[in-house]
């Protein structure tokens, strides 16, 4: 890879919501980095803090009640946290852009696609309307919308879901961002359309070379498009490795659970191995390891001690006492 320096680094990020009924620790110690041209996947169940992590990077956490409590986010080595809202607006949409889960609601229904694209381009690039329009048509072509010049005049509701997601992507790419955050970009779409979009993202990354953070709860999607993956549970990363490693040698019991609870076509199981119980309430996390109450390998110690993120030699991190002990055991031997 040409550039080994990470373009975006997140370090020990804590984002909490201070609600009437308690503090929601939505993101609680997340660290990762992405390099240009790389795709990082973030997976986890609903409510595990994936979107809030993304919103924290954009500094768009709804406030109040949300607040980045501690940690650091660095873009090209420069910390974003001290930046003022005005400066952030210059970065958003230009250096870091984002696409969202639901293309049906993410475009403003009362403005034409043209207006929404042009305003993005003209906010960040020094272009007049004419130039911006040309750029917009170019972008729509790029994401595979036929007859782009004409469709530009349309309103969002005149597009189908897949088309709208393409428009969203075009808009996100308008200013050649260095980082593209895709928050479950295909969850709301049908499988055949999902495939189209995932192919498109892969193609675009090859052409444009930006870093992609792909947020999803679908391990299939991760397997298809990501280079590295972070598994989140209850606001914390529990496992972090290359995609290959994760599927070959999953370490965390939660990851095991996830992998074995999805039905797989190539490998029809008699019975799914479900993870028992429910995800915890983030306002009131259990003591010790958050996953312990649902873990099939739970030990007494897990209920008391919150494990730290461990690392093995292959860049494979896991947050689990099983491995801390293993290490200890190996040391003993």
């Amino acid at each position: 890879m040409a550039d080994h320096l990470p373009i975006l680094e997140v370090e020990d990020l804590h984002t909490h919501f201070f609600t009437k009924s308690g503090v929601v620790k939505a993101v609680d110690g997340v660290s990762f980095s992405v390099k240009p041209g790389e795709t990082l996947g973030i997976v986890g169940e609903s409510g595990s803090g994936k979107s809030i992590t993304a919103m924290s990077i954009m500094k768009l956490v709804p406030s109040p009640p949300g607040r980045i409590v501690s940690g650091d986010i660095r873009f090209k080595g420069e910390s974003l946290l001290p930046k003022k809202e005005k400066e952030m607006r210059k970065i958003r949409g230009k250096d870091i852009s984002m696409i969202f889960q639901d293309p049906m609601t993410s475009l403003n229904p009362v403005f034409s696609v043209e207006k929404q694209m042009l305003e993005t381009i003209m906010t960040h690039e020094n272009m007049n309307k004419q130039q911006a329009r040309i750029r917009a048509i170019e972008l729509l072509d790029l994401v595979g919308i036929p007859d782009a010049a004409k469709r530009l005049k349309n309103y969002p509701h005149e597009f189908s879901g897949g088309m709208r997601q393409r428009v969203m992507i075009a808009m996100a790419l308008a200013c050649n961002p260095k980082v593209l955050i895709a928050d479950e970009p295909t969850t709301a779409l049908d499988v055949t359309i999902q495939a189209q979009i995932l192919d498109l993202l892969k193609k675009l990354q090859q052409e444009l070379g930006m870093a992609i953070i792909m947020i999803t709860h679908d391990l299939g999607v991760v397997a298809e498009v990501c280079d590295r993956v972070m598994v989140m549970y209850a606001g914390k990363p529990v496992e972090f490795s290359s995609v290959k490693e994760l599927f070959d040698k999953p370490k965390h019991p939660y990851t095991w659970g996830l992998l074995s609870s999805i039905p797989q076509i190539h490998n029809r199981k008699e019975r799914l191995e479900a993870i028992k119980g429910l995800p915890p309430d983030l306002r009131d996390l259990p003591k010790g390891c958050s996953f312990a109450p649902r873990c099939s390998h739970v030990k007494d110690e897990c209920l008391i001690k919150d494990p730290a993120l461990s690392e093995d030699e292959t860049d494979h991190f896991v947050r689990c006492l099983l491995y801390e002990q293993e290490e200890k055991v190996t040391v003993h031997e």
Partner: protein
Amino acid sequence: MAAEAKADQMDPAINRKKNSSLWLDSLSRVIKSKTSLIGLVIITLLIVVAIFAPQIATHSPTDQSIIDRYQSPSSEHLLGTDELGRDIFSRIVYGSRITIQIGVITVGISMIVGVFLGAVAGFFGRWVDQIIMRLIDIMMAFPSILLAIALVAVLGKSLTNAMIAVGIVGVPHFARIVRSTVLSVKETEYIEASRVIGAKNGRILFSHVLPNCLAPIIVQATLTIGTAILDAAGLSFLGLGAQPPLPEWGAMLSDGRSALQTAPWVVMFPGFAILLVVLGFNLLGDGLRDALDPRLKQ
């Protein structure tokens, strides 16, 4: 399998709340909200004043002392006296009874008729709906107070007729809200579910649809009491509502009007009482709306 399933009990949300029903839950939310608590306090105060009017009032509400007319507030007459030398404070205190009566009766009329029409229209649809909704449209084409005035002109001036008129004028609002709620509730899966288990129309309407329309109805009722009191007071102000010597606040205000220059208090206090009570109902209504259904916005 059972063991696996029972792990659901770990859900902390479940363990925290013990025997809470949806209504109790809402009630506690109402009380927790500061604004609706103020509303509740005002309304309770109104009711207490109404019940204990004879104890609270310092004078009879109707006893006149023409010699003492237009006296400014003093320790003898806390809020002064009116055009016939009656004690304004005592009249306001007794007037609270009329206000409550107005609120309950008008909204009762609007609600009973409106809910019936709305539920029938929404539930049975088709031509029944068409006919009812056209009627409602026609009623809604009149500015409400104007329609109320015309109705009182037909029925004759009296507090009762003013209440009937204001009640009728409020019908379309209830009908519309109930109809749209019924329509949306009717489409929900739990109504379909009750069809699947073989429930009949009557059961579905009374046991499933209407209870789920209750929240918006209650909210609407609370807010409508406020407007009903305003409208009825407006009618009395125009001389179409309460007749003498009833200490109705709007009528008091109207009678005091001729002395606005010399005795502004005759107008000031009854009007303030109206404002306060209507405010109370609006505060409570707002609170109820938030508590019963945060999504319900008018």
